C-alpha cells in the first residue's frame, strides 16, 4: 500500500472508529468557545460576569476561557476596581483559525 503523505488520517479511520464521546466533547467545546467569544464581543468581561450571563459554572468558564487565552483567541485586560477579577477581551490581532 502506497501511503499518501499529508492525507494519512483516512487510513486509520478505516480501522479505528472515533468514539462517540470524543465527537460529543468536540461539539461541546466548539459551542462553548462560540458562546464565550460572542459574549466577549459585546465588551470586556470577568469570569463571574461571563458565568452569570451565560448560566455556566464559574470554574467551567475559567477553564474554557483560559484555554482560549492559550489558543490565542482572548487576551487579558485590566483588573477590576477591587483588584480581584481580571477583564478578558477578544484578542485584537486575533487569528480566527481553527
Amino acid at each position, binding site marked *: 500500500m502506497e501511503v499518501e503523505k499529508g*492525507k494519512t488520517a483516512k487510513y486509520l479511520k478505516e480501522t479505528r472508529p472515533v468514539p462517540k464521546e470524543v465527537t460529543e466533547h*468536540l461539539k461541546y467545546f466548539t459551542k462553548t468557545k462560540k458562546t464565550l467569544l460572542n459574549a466577549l464581543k459585546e465588551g470586556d468581561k470577568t469570569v463571574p460576569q461571563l458565568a452569570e450571563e451565560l448560566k455556566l459554572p464559574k470554574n467551567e468558564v475559567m477553564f474554557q476561557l483560559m484555554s482560549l487565552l492559550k*489558543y490565542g483567541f482572548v487576551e487579558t485586560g485590566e483588573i477590576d476596581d477591587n483588584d480581584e477579577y481580571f477583564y478578558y477581551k477578544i484578542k485584537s490581532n486575533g487569528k480566527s483559525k481553527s
Partner: protein
Amino acid sequence: MNMQEQMKTLDYDVLVVGGGIAGGESALNLANIGYKVLIVEKELSIGGKMILLSKVFPTLDCAACITTPKVSEIARHPNITVFTGAEPLKITKKGEHRFEAVVLQNPRYVDVEACTGCQLCEEACPVSVTDEFQFGLIGRKAAFIPFSIASPRVAAIDIENCILCGACERACPPDCIDFTQTEQKYLVKAKAVVTATGFKLFDPLKIPRYGYDKFDNVITSMQMERELAPTRPFNTVLRPGDGKMPDNIAYVLCTGSRDKSVGNPICSQVCCMYSIKQAQLLMGSLPMADITIYYLHIRAFGKGFNEFYAQAQDMGVEFIKGKVGKITEKDNGNLILRYEDIEAGIVKEAEHDMVVLSVGVLPNRGIDEVFDNETLKLDPFHFINQSDILASPAKTSIDGVFVAGTASGPMDIPDSILSGGAASAETTSYLRREESI
C-alpha cells in the same frame, strides 16, 4: 522465539529506564566517558518532574534554566539515544554484563526527525482536552507539543481524543504527521541497567475530607507550581474556581505523607521546602497576599534550608503548627479550615480564599515486575531497595542493575542528581569489571 526474530535488535552498553534528572545525569556521565546509552522514557519528553517546576529551593534558581541545557545536552549527545513514549516490557539477565530488554515504542503519529515544532498543527486541531502537563488547569489540543520546553520539542497526536479529521496533516508544512505509525517493539541488548523511574505524587482524592476536586479552589502543590512557572496556565496566579486573584492562601503540609491512614507513613522530604519556596514566590507575585502554612514539623535539614525557612518567616509567611482535619467551602468559593492548633491544644477554624495541598512523594510502581528472571527487591514502602545503602548506594538486588534518584525513595533535586552521579559511577565500575576480565 518467533516474536524476537521479528524485533529489531539494538545494542548499547547501558539501558537507562527513565529520563528525568536522575536518569539524565547518569546517562550523561556514562556517555561522556564513552559508553553508548539508551534512555527509555515513558512520557513524550525527557526532563521528568523538574522540567515542569517554576523555581528550585533554596537558591530560587529557575528550574527550566537548569533543566533545559541539560536536557539539550542529553538529546544532542552522540553516545545517547532517547526513546520517548516508550517503556521496557521485559528485562532479562542472560548472564553477567548481558541484559536483554523488550522495549515498546508507542506511536507518536509524528515523524520526530521531520517535525520543526512550528505548532501549525496545534492551531489547526479543533479538539480541546485537559492538559496533563498543566495538571488539569487548562486545555490543550489533540495535536500538540507537550509543553514549550519539551525535549524533543516536536508534536504528538493524542490518538484517544483525536477525531481523525486530518486538519493537522493539511496544516503541516513538512508533512510529518503520519497516522499509519504503529507500535514497535525492540530487543535491546545492554551490559548494565540503570533504573531511574522516579516518583508519583500523592492523589489527594484519597483524603476526601480535604475536598480536592469537590472544591474548585483547593489545588495541589504541583498545580500551584504551574501557576508560578513562566509557562503558567493563567495570566497570573488565580483561583481555578472563578479567576479571582487570591489574597489569603493556606498550605496544608503532609498531605499524604507521614499518614498511616493513607498507607504512606514516611516523610516525603521535599514538601516543607517546596511549600516555603512557593510561599516566597507568591509573596513576590501577590505582594498583598497573606500566606499561612499549616505544618506538623518543619523539616529544613539540608544545606541552606533553615536559613531559607527563616527568610520566609522574615518575609511574613505565617507558620501554624496545626493538623488540618477538614475543609469546607463557602458560597463565595472561600474555604474554612478546621484544624487542631497543636501548641495551644485547641480546635480552631480559619478562612482562606485558596488552599494548596502539599502532596507527598509515592513510588512509581511496576518496574520490579519488568525484571523477568531475577528479583528486583523493593523496600517496605515499595521504592527500589538499596541493598548496600552506605557503601554502594546505587546497588540493587540484581548485580548490574543500579538505581538512581527518587526510584529509591523521596529526595530533593540536588540529592537526585547526586544519586544519578553515584549510579553512573557504580555502573562504570561494573562495566570496567567486565573489561578487565
